């Protein structure tokens, strides 16, 4: 398409020698800004067709493997944080203690159905050069009393920095945002995160923040393919070792609405 449009206008102004180079287009900028019917704005170049995306309520899969997140949550007061970190440093895999400072934004897409589609976009505020993290979390699967952890469908994607623009163009709207600051530990496939949630006072300004409560949230999670419920037993055993400092349990978010 490019070469067709160029032929009609270019021959009068360009030297013969350069025509080949201009047609490939790889050499650099063309000599004059060509008015094109195709849009030049980046978000539209990739999309071949634009139609309203159906808001699906089926479980979202990231590729072929359906990954589930198994989750246990609890909290610890600020004054007991040090003893918890000390114990975790002993129990978990021996690695450098890792702290993080993240900014998370939650986007909603209100479709025809009553419940909106939720996507979470997270970026690191202290580590430069890391990709943004887009996460989809499904509804927790309830009902099985033998399962000791909260189980929900989970899709994790690393994205580039224009994620928020992309989501806004898709029709998503930011519902809320917060800053998290804390520590992350690992034991085998288990991930233990201890973090404090900060409310952002001025939207978009991550410097004016205040803590939401006087406690740190403690989350023990495993992301594993669907069907491996035995991991919840491992999680329960690990949670036993953190008592009585922290009570990690399966908390149903719907109960707290």
């Amino acid at each position, binding site marked *: 398409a490019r070469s067709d449009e160029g032929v009609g206008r270019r021959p009068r102004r360009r030297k013969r020698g350069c025509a080949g180079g201009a047609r490939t287009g790889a050499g650099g900028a063309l000599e004059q800004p060509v008015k094109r*019917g195709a849009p030049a704005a980046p978000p*539209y170049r990739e999309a071949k067709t634009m139609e309203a995306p159906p808001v699906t309520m089926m479980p979202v899969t990231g590729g072929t493997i359906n990954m589930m997140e198994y989750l246990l*949550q609890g*909290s610890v*007061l600020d004054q007991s944080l040090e003893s918890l970190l000390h114990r975790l440093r002993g*129990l978990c895999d021996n690695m450098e203690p890792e702290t993080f400072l993240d900014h998370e934004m939650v986007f909603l897409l209100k479709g025809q159905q009553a419940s909106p589609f939720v996507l979470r976009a997270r970026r690191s505020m202290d580590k430069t050069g890391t990709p943004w993290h887009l996460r989809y979390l499904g509804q927790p699967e309830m009902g099985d009393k033998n399962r000791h952890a909260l189980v929900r469908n989970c899709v994790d994607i690393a994205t580039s920095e224009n994620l928020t623009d992309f989501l806004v163009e898709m029709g998503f709207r930011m519902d809320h945002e917060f800053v998290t600051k804390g520590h992350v530990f690992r034991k085998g496939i288990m991930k233990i995160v201890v973090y404090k949630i900060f409310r952002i006072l001025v939207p*978009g300004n991550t410097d004016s923040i205040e803590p939401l409560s006087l406690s740190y*949230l403690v989350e023990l999670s495993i992301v594993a393919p669907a069907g491996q419920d035995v991991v919840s037993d491992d999680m329960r055993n690990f949670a036993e070792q953190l008592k009585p400092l922290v009570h990690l349990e399966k908390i149903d978010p719907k109960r707290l*609405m």
Partner: protein
Amino acid sequence: MQREEKQLELSLEALISQVADLKNSLVSFIYKLENEYDRLTWPSVLDSFALLSGQLSTLNKVLKHEKTPLMRNQVIIPLVLSPDRDEEIMRQTEGRVPVFSHEVVPDHLRTKPDPEVEEQEKQLITDATRISSDVAQKQIQSLNKLCSNLLEKISKEERESESGGLRQNKQTFNPADTNALVAAVAFGKGLSNRRPPGSGGPVQASQPGAGAIIAGASGIQQVQMSGASSQQQPMLGGVQMSQAGQPGKIPSGIKTNIKSASMHPYQR
């Protein structure tokens, strides 16, 4: 045959490293107890116990792992017993076992308990199998009841005594905070500007209106740049109208865009 040998070797290595970790934490715990006993606090002791219990459970897990061959099927036979000092064994046991002799072997390679202990265990097992199942059930229930009565008595005593004040300090978590934090992460309770918390309500509520309008304005700019996407404008417009709290301004903006886009972009 070779695969089993390899499996055995690998699992033995894993076991040895686990046991070495366990030994190290025991050593440090003993050191702490012997040298720092006047400065020792109960949480520190609890930490050491928790560490030991964690390592024991990983050891158990390694033993129960499906790739670990049954150690029960392996037999260890001492081939040479000599009363001379053996440097190799000294090195491997860090000086604790200098001689591999007749005194040392029965203790280190033991697989069964003492004869007296074994007798007692056999006695208990025959007793247990002799009584009928409902008698056993009654015994279990009475044990449970005794335990719960005892627990109640202890908690009542703790509540009424003066050490109740001490117990407040030991509280390391607040369940109400747990619920608040989980609700905040799950659906933004207390975080969203549209559902403001108790303080600072009206100030935050005016800002999302401005934010949505800015998003709408930038969306309109991109629509002007693209030109040929006239079918998409009504959809975007619809979405923006639902977002912005001021529908009066934005629809007129879109109408002008449709007019400009109706000019064919290829006309010169």
